[in-house]
């Protein structure tokens, strides 16, 4: 199941990344190398094994629904690359293909 340059382009689009042709070639090679290595998991029969998503015993944790102070709007906006009043400002969204 070798990864092609086309696959790399598809994955890059999903991950919102872009690469030069040279980088695409390099990533295709390196991803294949890593995926080849990872193939070894297929040797294991895991038919009856439950997937493990959390290593310690956990259950939902509830606490009282009590108001606490958090960041002020000003603090929350202090790292904004662009803002207007109390809002984050981004380029126009409406009308954009695929968004």
């Amino acid at each position, binding site marked *: 199941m070798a*990864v092609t340059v086309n*696959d*790399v382009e*598809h*994955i*890059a689009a*999903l*991950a*919102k*990344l*872009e*690469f030069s042709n040279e980088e695409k070639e390099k*990533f295709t090679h*390196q*991803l294949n*190398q*890593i*995926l080849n*290595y*990872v193939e*070894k*998991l*297929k040797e*294991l029969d*895991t038919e009856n*094994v*439950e*997937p*493990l*998503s*959390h*290593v*310690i015993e*956990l259950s939902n*944790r509830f*606490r009282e629904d009590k108001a606490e102070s958090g*960041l002020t709007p000003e*603090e*929350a906006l*202090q*790292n*904004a*690359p*662009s803002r207007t009043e109390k809002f*984050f400002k*981004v*380029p*126009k*969204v409406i009308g*954009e293909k*695929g*968004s």
Partner: protein
Amino acid sequence: MKSFDAIKSELASGASTCESLTREYLEAIDRAKHLNAFLSVFAEEAHGQARAVDRKIREGTAGPLAGMVVSIKDVMCVKGHRVTCGSKILEEFVAPYDATAVARLRKADAVIIGKTNMDEFAMGSSTENSAFGRVKLPGDESRVPGGSSGGSAVAVKAGMSTVSLGTDTGGSVRQPASFTGVVGLKPTYGRVSRYGLVAFASSFDQIGPLSLTARDSAAVLNVIAGHDDRDSTSATVPVPDFTAGLNKDVKGLRIGVPKEYFDDALQEEIRGAVQKKIDLLRNHGAVISEVTLPHTAYTIATYYILATAEASSNLARYDGARYGYRVKGAKSLTEMYTRSRSEGFGGEVKRRIMLGTYVLSAGYYDAYYRKGQKVRRLIKEDFDNAFLRVDCLITPTSPSTAFKAGEKMDDPLQMYLSDVYTTSANLAGIPGISIPCGTDRQGLPIGLQILGKQFDEETILRAADFLETSG
């Protein structure tokens, strides 16, 4: 280089003050600038804190860590200071609050001296992946200090802070501790709150101390461990006094030696050095037995599927909208996202986002991600089985000593394999500690790893302390 114990007796006798110690550390940081261990230094603030601690010492109200000067890996929030994660994408980001671990250190009267350099977003095993330049190994600057907490390890080794807080997702505290010859402790998953720690792989990440002695790591863990309402994955398990179990013998301690960790990939001198310590423990009454962890050969593959999947999801937040680097002049939202991320992230981070996105993508999820989660269970069960018979395990920390800068940068798989003995603890959620274990022929430090049961840091600290104090 002074351990916290040595500092405490100096403070008690009046031979030094917290302020004079802080000055010494700041001078050491200045002298060792070329090692590139620090990304920011809080000179003035640290002096202010130190004076306040001295006042408390005089008044008899000082906290348990009074006199300890701590550096923090630049992946944890310290209020009012930058947290770059070694990345261009967060170069200008200023933390609006303290991470819980940092807040607890402060409350215990530790002085925070600055932030240490690291592999970008903690992804790497050599601290070469920092957007702000690589960290150099003290003593042989052509070599790497390990990673990703390389700056923290060097800060402790070169006397630039008493201890340092690092993070360990696949070995990032233990492997640099091994390469530089200091102690590095990865607590049980959930032992320390991750609030204010920038996420890499949320089911693996854990904050842990690097220090000169096991006792110092125990003292730090005493303060930072314990449940936090702000991290629902932080455990509610009671926190013992981790220093209380130290200074004990090892009579009757059942120690397992997993044969898979002594394979052909292991550097011969490391095998010999670790074996010597095993013999020493046996001679002092520990019960040594060989154990098997049959799925060891699958740990790196499992780790790199699951950790990159989690990373690709966690790092989706860097989109240039609310914080972090934003490219100028983007005409659309998608263009802003794509170009900001592409210019802001470095090569290794992009590689892992790509791999993680691939294993989570339609058609591959079952073959990779789900398969990885199943094998993770098998790996965890290996440890569960071993711990039915033994109290802890002894292994080498890394298959080699510190390697040359540049040596593995073009071969990601080789770089990943340097974590072959450490990722298993993160997969199984168990605690592990790396302690110095002599040097190889070139004088490079060797690390020995002790792995314990979940929430049984006491046993591995006790064994580590014993080895440290009995030569």
